[in-house]
């Protein structure tokens, strides 16, 4: 049995498969469910200052098994209500990472100071939702903004801060460097890739919001390239996200430079049992490849190309 434990930003995770933000994380029972299914940690839905219903339906479009386009619109119960959900997940033993989104550094910092009280082990900043006016990518695609927001949050946070950055930019490494400069303990990449679907019969976008974000296997090469480009440019650890549905996918991310990965869309396509399967399969894969510890594989693909 290979050693799958991940040490990252002062945390120790039982395995590298973290439930990605936005999947299942609106309720504490669901977070607990992902944890019992075997996730190494669970990230909450992105939480804002007040309750937000999100966009009208349709909010999703699927492409066979290779992709999922969504524009949920950051629905969440708000930071006043949400701590009870975290508590439910923690009572079930889950390692919970709290995700927050804000419109500026001050709002992010306020949310972080509230997250301190909830027992989360880390705070992930949503600097990357591609379809919410005034949030996400709109505040997170400028390195100066990223640095300012991360710095303001780190000042308030009593737990490690993870900056989740966008692929919808020419230079993801610049965003990661800015996050590190601001004091982030880790960078997670990527969020969804901006996308659109049109119903030709109805001559209109499928999603009520129009633009959405693409996730799933289609974006794996995009996420891998971002991790690849960031690795070596920062000294803080990386968390890979984007189209991970198998142990091979995860190991690709690790070899590109990630220490852990987040899994989202695979839960929609394969159910939450995917976590148990990923852990099992990764054990088998590492054994077959003669890799004793997952951590030994971090970034190894870079050596092959000097």
């Amino acid at each position, binding site marked *: 049995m290979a050693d799958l434990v991940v040490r990252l930003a002062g945390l120790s995770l039982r395995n590298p498969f973290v439930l990605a933000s936005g999947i*299942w994380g*609106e309720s504490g029972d669901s977070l607990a469910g992902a944890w019992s299914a075997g996730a190494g940690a669970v990230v909450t839905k992105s939480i804002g200052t007040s309750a937000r219903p*999100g966009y*009208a339906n349709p909010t*999703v479009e699927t492409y066979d098994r290779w992709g*999922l386009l969504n524009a949920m619109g950051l629905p*969440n119960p*708000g930071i006043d209500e949400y701590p009870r959900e975290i508590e439910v997940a923690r009572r079930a033993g889950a390692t919970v990472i709290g995700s927050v989104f804000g419109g500026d550094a001050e709002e992010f910092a306020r949310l972080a100071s509230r997250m301190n009280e909830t027992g989360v082990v880390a705070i992930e900043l949503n600097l990357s939702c591609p379809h919410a006016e005034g949030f996400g990518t709109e505040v997170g695609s400028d390195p100066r903004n990223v640095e300012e927001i991360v710095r303001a949050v780190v000042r308030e946070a009593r737990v490690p801060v993870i900056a989740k950055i966008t692929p919808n930019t020419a230079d993801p490494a610049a965003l990661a460097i800015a996050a590190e400069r601001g004091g982030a303990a880790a960078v997670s990449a990527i969020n969804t890739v901006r996308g659109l679907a049109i119903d030709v019969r109805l001559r209109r976008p499928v999603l*009520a919001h129009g633009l959405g974000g693409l996730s799933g296997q289609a974006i794996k090469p995009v996420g891998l390239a971002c991790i690849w480009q960031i690795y070596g440019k920062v000294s803080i650890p990386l968390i890979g996200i984007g189209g991970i549905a198998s142990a091979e996918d995860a190991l690709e991310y690790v070899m590109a430079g990630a220490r852990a990965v987040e899994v989202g869309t695979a839960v929609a396509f394969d159910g939450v049992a995917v976590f148990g399967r990923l852990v099992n399969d990764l054990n088998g894969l590492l054994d077959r490849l003669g890799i004793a510890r997952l951590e030994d594989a971090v970034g190894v693909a870079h050596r092959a190309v000097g």
Partner: protein
Amino acid sequence: METPSTVTLRFAFEPPSAPGQFVMLWIPGDDELPMSLSYTEGRSKGVTIKAMGDTSRRVQSVRVGDPIGIRGPYGNGFDLRPRDILIVAGGSGAAVLAPAAERARAAGASVTVALGATTKRELLFADRFRSMGARVEVATDDGSEGERGFVTGLATRLVDQRSFDAVWTCGPEVMMRKVVDAASGKRVRVSCAVERHMKCALGMCDACALGPLHVCTDGPVFESDRLTAIPDFGRFHRDPSGRRVPF
């Protein structure tokens, strides 16, 4: 038009569907709603919707030839094996129960229906249940047909009177919890078709979370023992933001 407040939409939709399953019905430019199928056989499926709020009124205003979108069918269906079934339908709950009852009758099962509504004219699918050979008992809030009172009272008396193989219920969650409570202690399996706010219908977004369950992919039909273990069942739902709100 089924009742003064209830309308059925029929549409061409090929995928085979089981009674209990639902589709996401898209009214372009407006909204997309989870709707249980009230007609599940053949190529023309149907949904039956009661005017509750603005959105359901707008769905009712769809006219023949208007463009709509349908995705699905999603979720599970009723276990159609029981031979002696009590159906408890409140409000528009009869919409999903009628095709299940038809399937059960066609397979030779005995079907008793406790049908509730505010008033006589709002009784949904009473004739449809009768014409399939079900025994129909009625409760109306105002006593304009059948006994005066809620359908839960009628259902309680029926399960006390004799034993059924199964109880199938759909209606307001508070009502279903009462039906489950009434049947507890009897040796009868209760299946509830649960309605919750839905967005993705794929088991991803968590909007329809009910305790550890997701109504869209684990349900919408649940055996009552899974539901009674959930404190929120019949007590709290979640609004579109995910906030717990008491019924």
